């Protein structure tokens, strides 16, 4: 963490090489956050691009190097949201279920989980669809907590809400994910 702050400080002081280090440190995390938020790899790649370009242009607005992670996640999530709204969040869960109902046998997918790589890919596809059916705020809370491994206080900081609100969003997000997974045959 101290190393990350040092790199951010170097970049704030005009060292362009430090920016490349920041990209190396963060691009995978931002890519995966955007991929899970948008459900599309190409869009996720674009979000990474836009995020780091925004970081490069507006790094001077960052006051504290230790707040870099929170600041970066906010920028990335803003790009994700605007892209999500632009594309009109096209795939509803009902559509996802109907396109995914070729198997037809409920309950079979639970057995697939963890069995083989091909099955795992299918499960990832189901999880993706389950998450896409959750509201933006609830999905964001799940992504930051479950996949980015942040504390709930950090999640609240990034989402700019009280800790109790972050907890509530995470709980309801998990409930929605649970319902969606059931509808998609994962029990």
């Amino acid at each position, binding site marked *: 963490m101290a190393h990350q702050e040092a790199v951010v400080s170097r970049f704030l002081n005009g060292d*362009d090489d430090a920016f490349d280090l920041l990209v190396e440190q963060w691009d*995978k995390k931002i890519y995966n956050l955007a991929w899970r938020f948008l459900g599309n790899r190409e869009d996720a790649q674009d979000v990474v691009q836009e995020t780091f370009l925004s970081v*490069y242009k507006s790094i001077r607005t960052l006051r504290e190097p230790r707040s870099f992670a929170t600041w970066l996640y906010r920028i990335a999530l803003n790009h994700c949201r605007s892209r999500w709204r632009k594309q009109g969040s096209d795939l509803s869960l009902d559509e996802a279920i109907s396109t995914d109902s070729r198997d037809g046998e409920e309950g079979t997918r639970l057995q697939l989980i963890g069995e083989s790589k091909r099955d*795992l890919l299918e499960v990832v596809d189901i*999880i993706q669809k389950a998450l896409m059916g959750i509201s933006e705020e609830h999905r964001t809370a799940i992504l930051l907590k479950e*996949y980015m491994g942040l504390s709930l206080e950090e999640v609240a900081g990034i989402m700019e809400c009280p800790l109790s609100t972050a907890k509530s969003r995470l709980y309801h997000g998990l*409930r929605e994910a649970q319902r969606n997974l059931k509808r998609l045959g994962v029990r």
Partner: protein
Amino acid sequence: MRCDEIQERFIELLYDEPAVVSNDSVLKEHVNSCASCRRELEELRNTRRVLRLWQDEKPLRPLTILRTQKVSHHALGNAWQLVRFGAIAALVLLSILALANTRLTWNERGLSFSTRLFSGGNSSTDYYTKAEVRDILKRSLDDSEARMYETNSLMIQEALEIMEKEQYSYFRLASAKTNQRQNVN
């Protein structure tokens, strides 16, 4: 507490975090005694396990375009800075030229440029003194007076010559008539 109120607090049991972990015995006792809440909690734990099957992957490609955008951003910034510095330099130059009483002339011999910035003010040789002005005026008056006298004398001389010629012609005419009368007599 009702089941829905208890379930709203499940996050305190799902995550082992000092900021959220619950030491509330009421919550734990309720879950232990309520099969519905226990099942609900277990399902949420299972949901978390399923969600975590979605593993991270590497980005599709490195941020190569970003570098060019970075460069163009730099180039734009530099160009903008150049324009700003250029405008300031032009303003300073114009101010100096204005203060220096600069004279720009464009004629058939081309562009000429002169300034009095370092001449130490106007030279005394550039202006006539009062005495010089008086002298010039006096000389010009004298000159014009002399020209007038000369013209007048020329005119008088010319008039006298004309009168003399006319007198001579009258004299010749009169003497001719006198000779003619003597011959007749």
